[in-house]
């Protein structure tokens, strides 16, 4: 039965701790960038889509394609459109959001590194299986973020 006991607990696995710390700091960094971009947009910086136009379109139930047609790009972008538009407020805000979304991939790569290099992890049974699983998850998340799929 799974019940509490007074025994000493095992140390939490290093890979888990590394994943938790990495994603936490990455997402905090991403949120700060996104907020900076958002403030810049509200201050009246030259945006890819003007806030007034965007809110109006959103409120009218326009699809993303229609909204992007009213932007300075002129059509719905494919892939990471913000990379070439970091000098615009919404480009910067979108970079922050992308950093947030990429944090799990970074965290999983770090967890994989912790699994590979940690001696305590190597002592645990089925060590190789979890090494491979973490590498596969990290790879899928990275390829997915890169738009390969």
């Amino acid at each position, binding site marked *: *039965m*799974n019940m*509490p*006991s*007074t*025994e*000493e*607990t095992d140390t*939490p696995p290093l890979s888990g701790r590394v*994943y*938790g710390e990495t994603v*936490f700091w990455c997402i*905090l960094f991403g*949120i700060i960038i*996104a*907020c900076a971009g*958002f*403030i810049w*947009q*509200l*201050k*009246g910086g030259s945006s890819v*889509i*003007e*806030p*007034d*136009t*965007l*809110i*109006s379109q*959103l*409120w*009218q*139930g326009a699809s*993303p*394609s229609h*909204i*992007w047609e009213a932007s300075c790009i002129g059509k*719905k*972008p494919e892939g990471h459109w913000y990379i070439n538009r970091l000098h615009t407020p*919404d480009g910067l*805000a*979108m970079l*922050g*959001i*992308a950093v*947030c*979304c*990429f944090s*799990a991939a970074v965290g999983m790569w770090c967890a994989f590194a912790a699994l590979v290099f940690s001696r305590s992890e190597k002592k*645990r049974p*089925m060590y190789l299986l979890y090494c491979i*699983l*973490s590498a*596969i*998850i990290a790879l*899928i*998340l990275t390829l*997915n973020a890169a738009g390969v*799929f």
Partner: protein
Amino acid sequence: MRCFAGFFRFSSLKTSSVLILLSAVLLFTSIHTLHPQENGIPPTVVSPMLFFFALCIICMLIGIFAVLGGVGGGVIFTPLMMGFTSIDSYIIRTTGLFIAMAGALIAARPYLRKGIANIRLLMLTALPNVLFSIIGAFLAVYIHSSMGETGEALIRGILGVFVIGISILFICTRKRTEYPETGTVDAFSKCLCLDMSYREDSVGEKVSYRVKRTLPGILCICLIGLTSGLFGLGAGWAIVPVFNLVMLVPLKAAAACSTVMISLGGTAAVWPYILNGGMFPILVVPCLIGMTAGAHIGSKIMMKSKPSFIRYIIIIVLLCAGIRLCTKAFSMG
């Protein structure tokens, strides 16, 4: 050295407090700087300032109720916004997924630091969850791009039925076991070495547990991943019962594992939406600030409130949103 110690003490501050501070700075700086458009664009129905405040307040309320009701924000945000606003469902699902994912990523840290979330179980179940979340997201992109208005009606209709189902599930299943009895463990689960222990602070003791029925659990997780990607939901409401009732993980560990799982599945599902131009920071940032602040306030209120009462409110809200989604889908179809 003291300087570093101070920094790390700062780093251990609750993230939500930092985010609330950020939002305060954001509000302060934006109040004086919002400007009327002078470039000939027709005036909006809602001013940017009103839009920002309205979204912040709505999301804050959603965040409060979500915490009090023990669900993630996404499961309330997506149906409510899709049912009661005219915003395109694709954009709402993208935003909903991001909010669910961001909240889970922030919350994952203490669970993993204390070892409450079982990282081995997560790595094993995250792989099918990630794969099926991506498939669900691509299915959503396909429906949106190829089926147009019919696709929109289809998504709203199915989500409506789904949300009504979730609320019925909330009414019927109150059977959650804090420390489930494991009994005999199947051979497959045994060979994966998923057993783990954590320190239960409320009783000051160690909880050791064994994971059972891994294969059926993985199959359930595949289905959950698909719905999460397709409808832009966090799906914590489904992952916790699978871990707790199917795989017999203690309730606290199941909730912790569910949070970390959403952080991985949500990340995988959100990219196809982003890369197809469905993410707009002007919508996402206020929602994120509002939800984080709401979750912080909700956790404070939780100490003094009756959870069962809040649970009934959430059930009613979900039922209303579900019915509204279905009627909207019928009128569109």
